[in-house]
């Protein structure tokens, strides 16, 4: 097993522990925004998709795959962060309109 791979495992395990620690105290009110925000973060796979767009040869299959990867990952990232922001905007304290 390559050293890069082993250090990858170390990073993975540590990050998982950090994730557990950071998230276990979130109040239920924020569960939905937390989930959609986390979902947007999982769009980090866009980095893999973009890296895939380097040294693309002539193969049509690779081009289609990379294009689809970039597109789906961007939907995930842009949509995820935007919708989370939209939700959280509603959560901020604001004077309640009393219309009657």
């Amino acid at each position, binding site marked *: *097993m390559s050293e890069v791979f082993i250090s*990858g495992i170390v*990073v*993975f*395990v540590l*990050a*998982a522990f*950090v*994730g*557990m620690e*950071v998230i276990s105290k979130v109040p*239920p*009110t924020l*569960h*939905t925004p*937390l*989930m*959609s925000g*986390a*979902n947007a*973060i*999982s*769009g*980090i*796979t*866009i*980095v*893999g*998709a*973009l890296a*895939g*767009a*380097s*040294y693309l*040869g002539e193969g049509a299959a*690779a*081009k289609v795959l*990379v294009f*689809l990867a*970039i*597109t*789906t*990952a*961007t*939907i995930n*990232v*842009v*949509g*995820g*962060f*935007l*919708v*989370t922001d*939209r*939700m959280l905007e*509603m*959560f901020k*304290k604001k004077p309640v309109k*009393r219309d*009657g």
Partner: protein
Amino acid sequence: MVELLYMAAASLFIFGLKMLGSPRTARRGNMFAAAGMFLAIIVTLVNEEMLSWGMIVAGMVVGGAIGAVLALRVKMTAMPELVAAFNGFGGAASALVALAELDRNGAELPVEIAAVVAASLAVGSVTFSGSFIAFGKLQGALPGRPVALPGQHMINAVLAAAIIGLAVWGAAVGVVAPYWIIVAVALVLGVFGVLPIGGADMPVVISLLNSLSGVAASMAGFIIGNSALIIGGALVGAAGFILTVQMGEAMNRTLANVLFSGFGSAVAGAGELSDKPVNRATADDVAIALGYADSVIVVPGYGLAVAQAQHATRDLGLALEDKGVTVDYSIHPVAGRMPGHMNVLLAEADVPYEQLLDLDQSNPRFPQTDVVVIVGANDVVNPSARDDADSVIYGMPILEVDLARTVIVIKRSLSPGFAGIDNPLFYNENTMMFFSDGKAAMEDILKSVKSL
């Protein structure tokens, strides 16, 4: 240097998630995470060589437009569907990254890389198809009840074993074919895995799919040796996992039970329901009970979302507060179709989050509460979970609304909830049943309260 910048991006993710944990900082937290993503993308674009810019711009414009339109147009009641869809796109992206790498490098890989390629393909594909089945169920295009073939668990076990077998074949022989078959089998497994799970178990399923989308991203990170992907994916995997466990606990059920039991497939026939009399109430009866109470707690459920009754409920709450009544809202962890679903709807309706009580805060308060109003919730307030050891939901933590002085249930009919069982609460002496659509009911009651 590049590694350090990826590390910075990952740190922004961690800070962002941490800040998402408190209402005061949550919005900034989301922006931190988005900034981390922006940084990671810029670093990649600057660092990689021979990029096909046309394709990158095209993919990001198309994906960005789709994502933005979906995010800005979605109704808050449809949030569970949208989160499911985004999970699916994330899973698909990770599987596609793995396929692209396979296409570029060929299949003669070191065994550990072969393993993560297979894992990324399998998890990403299951997440993709499973999420879109969940989407269909939530959105109503597919039946919400459990749907299963005979021997479904056996079939799924065989499919899972086949994926492992194919992965071994791929690693041993070094050809591309088994990897493509893994994608096909995993897509089928995602469909078969989610179809047998009923609508009310969706909070668990969405959390789990969320977790899997993170795991898939992390596996893709191992393939291309990128720590930002590994860390980001692991964080999401952990977050989704914690929510999955919490949702399971809120139903007193193990993950295995949620995934495999086909819970909710028992449809109670009319004959099984009690024919005991209920106290029918009119809008005026309800208004009098509410208007002259000191304290009222509203318990919303999935029915509130279906009826789009969040604004009408808020209006009634404000009218009662004007009359000097204390109004709070009790939210069961699995009310609705995803974790926190009800909180989002009430936030949309401008209900301050200080008025939203969770399970532990609510139960001590019911005995001192004059009136509890239940809008579209059923199983989460069913006293059988506490009193009847034979009940299928026995042991599930419930909101003990029956301890309040008066309980008002707004419901379209006496039909059972998702668990398919009768609810003794409806027949209690201190319970009033107001048979109506949630939104219309709130509007009628509001009118009556105003004329008190």
